[in-house]
């Protein structure tokens, strides 16, 4: 698979603050990546560096195998950052035409992309008259103008109302389904869970997890068990090879696994030991629980 962006050991310091610590990653064509992290974890700084607006302290990054200069490569990239930035005194159409000039794409794309984000009927309105949701959609239209190889979105639903969030999310899904590579930075986990195939978890500038979303969610499952005598239950499971650890929570025994174990096998194992359960549930952590665990426990 073709590599679009390679980041190697990237570091950024703002004075005493080490905002990005040794981040490495590779973006392959066709995948949808999520960058997760609490506010201030270095998501935007990392994106700022590869987008040529923040200077790196050390490390390397290469667009499209390093064959071209960053600003040339960025003409094949579509990106929106935190807040939509346009000239307030120009209309939607004039703003997009200016972006076309910078990127070197024909103006014919403007109407097409305004249609995609549903702003074609407002093309002659000045940017300053737009609501935040419309501004954000205009930013997406602008990022799509050059039919980019990769779309980079930094907190695209930040500050929007529920309808706005839904609209943006639908647009992102449509674009993803057309095979465009997407890099989505967000602190909204369900957003990433719904659209992304790969995920990168950052905290205080460090990578905590990097890999497939499925991998992050499904590695560990856990059981909630209850029987008449919980102590007996706990000692019966003490030596089971698949069990990582056990905790008593609200009258239930929570059993964490280190390797796969089906519910029926668990049931059979306990019956063989003469224990009958009142309650047996097998659950997997949602991305959110997983994320909180990752970012808190380390």
């Amino acid at each position, binding site marked *: 698979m073709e590599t679009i962006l390679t980041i190697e050991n990237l570091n950024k310091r703002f004075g005493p603050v080490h905002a990005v610590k040794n981040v490495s990653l590779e973006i392959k064509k066709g995948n949808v990546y999520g960058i997760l992290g609490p506010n201030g974890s270095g998501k935007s700084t990392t994106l700022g560096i590869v987008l040529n607006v923040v200077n790196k302290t050390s490390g390397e990054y290469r667009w499209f195998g390093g064959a071209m200069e960053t600003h040339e490569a960025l003409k094949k990239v579509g990106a929106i950052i935190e807040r939509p930035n346009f*000239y307030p*005194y*120009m209309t939607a159409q*004039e703003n997009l035409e200016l972006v076309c*000039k910078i990127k*070197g794409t024909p103006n014919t794309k403007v109407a097409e992309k305004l249609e995609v984000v549903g702003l074609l009927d407002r093309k002659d309105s000045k940017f300053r008259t737009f609501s935040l949701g419309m501004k954000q959609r205009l930013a997406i239209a602008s990022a799509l103008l050059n039919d980019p190889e990769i779309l980079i979105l930094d907190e695209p639903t930040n500050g929007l109302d529920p309808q706005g969030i839904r609209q943006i999310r639908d647009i992102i899904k449509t674009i993803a389904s057309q095979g465009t590579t997407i890099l989505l930075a967000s602190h909204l986990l369900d957003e990433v869970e719904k659209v992304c195939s790969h995920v990168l978890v950052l905290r205080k500038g460090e990578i905590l997890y990097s890999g497939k979303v499925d991998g992050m969610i499904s590695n560990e499952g856990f059981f909630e068990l209850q029987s008449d005598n919980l102590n007996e239950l706990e000692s019966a499971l003490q030596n089971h090879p698949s069990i990582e650890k056990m905790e008593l929570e609200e009258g239930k025994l929570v059993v964490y696994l280190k390797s796969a174990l089906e519910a029926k096998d668990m049931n059979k194992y306990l019956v063989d030991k003469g224990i009958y359960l009142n309650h047996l549930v097998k659950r997997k952590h949602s991305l959110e629980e997983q994320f909180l665990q990752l970012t808190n426990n380390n």
Partner: protein
Amino acid sequence: MIRLLQIEFKKIWKNKASRILTISYFVILSFIALIASIKFNIGNFELQIADQGIFNFPYIWHFYTYIAAILKFFLAIVIVSMMANEYSYGTLKQNLIDGFSKKEFIQSKFITVLVFALASTVFVFIMSLILGLSFSSYNEIDIIFSDLEYILAYFLKLTAFFSFCLFLGILVKRSAFAIGFLFVWNIIEGIIIGLMKWRIFKNSDTADTIAQFLPLESMSNLIKEPFTRLNVIKNIEESIGGVPNVKDYGVHWYSMFIVFCWIVIFVLMSYKILQKRDL
């Protein structure tokens, strides 16, 4: 280059304030011609400015470029806000993300500065030529096209001043503060020169020698005030002071060179700031 100019022109022209300022600038510039119709009535003696030789070739090149340069503040505001707005709108960041390089960004701004300076110079050249041809007492080709170094000096002066504005716009990031800084700087230069003249280097030319290297002073040194060069004024001075005022009104190559150096310094420093700064 055409592409950069198109981008920049679009940014300025779509902005109502910049558009109005630019148009007003050229309109007011052409109003200087109205000086021709000023008449004074002193008793029953009528004095018309146009008859006093200010529109004579080649003096008019000196006179018109000096007066026209005062109006440069109109365009200075346009230049400063063209730069500072990019910061306040966040469009500088967006332009870079869209694939502008930092070099192209500075280039596009500097080309605009050159175009403004050139447009103003051409305008002033044509206006002076028309006024001169209508009022000048001397109309020989040789005389008409002598002393044209004032036009070149005017172009350099504007380019340098606008480059300074561009640099301040990038440095300060806010239009109002940048223009404020320009005035503060003007005062600072005045204080430096004053201190040198009356405290440090009393009774010598050292103060002037050093002062000519200061940015704003070097720009105003290019075209010296033309009034005391007029015959009318000269006559008055001589009758009051008794001694004819000997002064050098010429445009010197070393003044031009100093100003040229400032232009290079301002543009390079703007580029360096842009490169160093995290947006």
